[in-house]
C-alpha cells in the first residue's frame, strides 16, 4: 500500500518510467514472438529436410527449372544412393508475394520413398494419397492452404486452372508442409509443364519432366559427401542437404532473430536507465524522509529493501502492461496474417513469463544504486535537507 502511495505521489514521472518499461517489454514480447516463429520454421524445416539430398537444376533450386526424369535412373546407380525418385515441387503462383513460406504444389508417386520419409504427417481429416491416385486430380492439403481456402475433404480446390478433389487435410506442422498441396506426380507434371514460359517449355514432355530428385543415402553413407558426389556425377545439377540449408537459411534466420531480440533488449536497457533516473530523483526528493526513518531507528537494509521493492514494482507494472499490449499486438498481427496465410508470431508462455520476470528484476537492479546511496546518508544531514 505504502509502495503504491509512494509511486502515486509522483504520478507523471512514475507513469513515464512505467511507459518506458512497457515499450521495452512490448518490443521484447512482439520481437521475441517473431524470433520464436522464425526459429520454429527453421527447426521444422531442418527436420523436414532430414537425412536427404535434394538434387535440382544448377540454374536454380526453387522448382522453377526442369530436370529430365532420366536423371533419376542415373542417380540411382551412383555409389551410396539407396533410394532415388523424381518429384515436381514448385510454387503454385510465381507472381504471388507473401511473407513466410509460399504455397507449393508437390507431386510424386506415393511409396517412391520406400518408407524412408519419416516426417510425422498427421491427418486432420481424410486420407493420405496412394499410388492408385495417379492419373486422378486429387489433392492432400497442408493446414495453412486448407485454412486459407476454407477447404473441406470432399470439396474441390482450384490449382493453376485445374479443379482438384480434396481427399485429405494435414494437421499444422508449423513448417514447410503447411503450405504445400500434395498431388499425384502426373497431375503435377501436367500443370508444371503447361505453365512454363515457352522458351523453357520447348519440347518438354510432361511425363518425362520433374523439378527435383529426392535421394536417400544407403546406411552409413555420409549425406554431405554423397551430395558432393551427386553434383559431380550428374550433369548440370545442384545437390543440397539439411546442413547446407542450415548454413544458408539457418544462419540468416539466427542472425535475424538475434537482431530482433537485440532491438528489444536495447529498448529495455533504455527503460532500465529511466528507472535508475526516476529512483535517483525520488531518493533525492525523499532525502529528508529517509533521514527521519534512519533517525527513528530504520536500518539501512530496510531502507534499501523499501526502495528496491518500489523500483521492482515499477518494473513489474511496466512489464505487465507491456506483456498485455504485446499479447494484443501479437494476436492482432496473427489475425491479419491469417488472412494472407501467414502466422507471423508464436508467443509462448515462457516468453511471456521471462519478459515479466526480466522487467521486475531489471527494475530492482536499477533501484539498487540509488537505494544504497540513500541508506548511506548521514541521518543528521538528511534531516536538514529541504
Amino acid at each position: 500500500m505504502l509502495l503504491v502511495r509512494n509511486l502515486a505521489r509522483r504520478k507523471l514521472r512514475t507513469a513515464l518510467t512505467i511507459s518506458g518499461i512497457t515499450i521495452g517489454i512490448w518490443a521484447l514480447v512482439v520481437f521475441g514472438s517473431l524470433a520464436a516463429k522464425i526459429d520454429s520454421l527453421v527447426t521444422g524445416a531442418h527436420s523436414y529436410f532430414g537425412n536427404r539430398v535434394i538434387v535440382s537444376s544448377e540454374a536454380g533450386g526453387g522448382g522453377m527449372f526442369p530436370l529430365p526424369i532420366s536423371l533419376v535412373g542415373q542417380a540411382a546407380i551412383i555409389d551410396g544412393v539407396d533410394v532415388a525418385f523424381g518429384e515436381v515441387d514448385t510454387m503454385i503462383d510465381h507472381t504471388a508475394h507473401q511473407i513466410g513460406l509460399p504455397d507449393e504444389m508437390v507431386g510424386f508417386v506415393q511409396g517412391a520413398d520406400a518408407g524412408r520419409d519419416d516426417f510425422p504427417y498427421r491427418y486432420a481429416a481424410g486420407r493420405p494419397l496412394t499410388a492408385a491416385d495417379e492419373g486422378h486430380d486429387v489433392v492432400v492439403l497442408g493446414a495453412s492452404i486448407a485454412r486459407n481456402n476454407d477447404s473441406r475433404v470432399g470439396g474441390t480446390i482450384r490449382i493453376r486452372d485445374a479443379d482438384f478433389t480434396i481427399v485429405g487435410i494435414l494437421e499444422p506442422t508449423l513448417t514447410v508442409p503447411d503450405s504445400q498441396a500434395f498431388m499425384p506426380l502426373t497431375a503435377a507434371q501436367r500443370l508444371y509443364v503447361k505453365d512454363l514460359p515457352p522458351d523453357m517449355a520447348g519440347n518438354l514432355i510432361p511425363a518425362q519432366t520433374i523439378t527435383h530428385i529426392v535421394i536417400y543415402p544407403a546406411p552409413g553413407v555420409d549425406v554431405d559427401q554423397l551430395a558432393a558426389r551427386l553434383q559431380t556425377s550428374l550433369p548440370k545439377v545442384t545437390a543440397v542437404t539439411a546442413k547446407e540449408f542450415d548454413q544458408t537459411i539457418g544462419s540468416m534466420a539466427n542472425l535475424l532473430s538475434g537482431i530482433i531480440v537485440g532491438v528489444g533488449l536495447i529498448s529495455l536497457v533504455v527503460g532500465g536507465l529511466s528507472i535508475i533516473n526516476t529512483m535517483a530523483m525520488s531518493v533525492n526528493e525523499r532525502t529528508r524522509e529517509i533521514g527521519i526513518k534512519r533517525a527513528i531507528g530504520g536500518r539501512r537494509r530496510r531502507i534499501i529493501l523499501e526502495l528496491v521493492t518500489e523500483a521492482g514494482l515499477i518494473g513489474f507494472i511496466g512489464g505487465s502492461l507491456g506483456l498485455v499490449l504485446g499479447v494484443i499486438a501479437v494476436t492482432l498481427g496473427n489475425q491479419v496474417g491469417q488472412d494472407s496465410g501467414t502466422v507471423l508470431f508464436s508467443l509462448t508462455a515462457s516468453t511471456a513469463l521471462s519478459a515479466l520476470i526480466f522487467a521486475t528484476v531489471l527494475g530492482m537492479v536499477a533501484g539498487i544504486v540509488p537505494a544504497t546511496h540513500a541508506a548511506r546518508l548521514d541521518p543528521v544531514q538528511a534531516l536538514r535537507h529541504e
Partner: protein
Amino acid sequence: MTLLEATNLRKTFNLGRGNIVEALRGVNVTIDAGEMVAIMGPSGSGKSTLMHILGLLQQPDLDWEPAPSLVIGGRETTHLPDGARTQARARELGFVFQSYNLVPTLTAAENVALAADYAGRGGSRGRAAALDALGLVGLSHRANHRPNELSGGEQQRVAIARALVNEPRMVLGDEPTGNLDSSRSAEVLTLLRRFNRERGQTFVLVTHDPEVGAACDRIIRMRDGRVLGSELARAA
C-alpha cells in the same frame, strides 16, 4: 540513578577550504533517569550537536585525548557500529524535532506504528501500540489523518506519540515547541511534563525558549561548544 554519562565529547566539522568549526570542545554531561533536562544556549553554542551525539545520530570525534565516552544505560556506545546504534535509536531512544518530521505519505497511526515496527513490533501489535500512544496524546480521533491534514500542534503530538511508543529510556527533543504558537507550545509542554511525572520518562530538550527551560527540572547552559554550568530550574 544515572542514565547517561558523557565525558570529553568533542566534535569538529570541516566545512572545506580550511573552514573548521569546533562545535563541541570537550563536554561532560550527566543525566539521571526520570529527569527532565533542558539544554539552552545561543545559536552556535553546540547544543544541537550535543543532542545529536547523545541521541546516537552522530558520533563524537574519537581521535582526541582524553578519549570520549558516552555511556547510556550502562553501555559504552562510542564504538558501536552503525547497525547497533540504529537499533539502540529504535528501541531505547525517542526523538521529537522542531519541524515534526513525520513521513508525509503515512497516516498518524502509520507514522507511530513505523517506529514500533523498527523496534521489532510489526503488524497488528505495532498498530495497537500506535493507537495506544495516540490515545495518550489525545489524538485517537485523528489516527487515520495524514500529516498535511493535521495542525502543527497535532503533528507535534503525533511525533511525541511516535517517540513514546517504544517506551524508550530517553526522549530527545530538538526545539520541540519552536514552530508552535504559545498556547500550542504550552499544551505540548504540559504533555511532556505529564509523561515525565506520571511515567518517569526521561526528557532531554534542546531549546531557546525560556518557557521550556522553566518547565524542566534542570537547565544545562552552553556557549561556544562548552557547558557553562547546570542549574536547577524554577519548579514549574
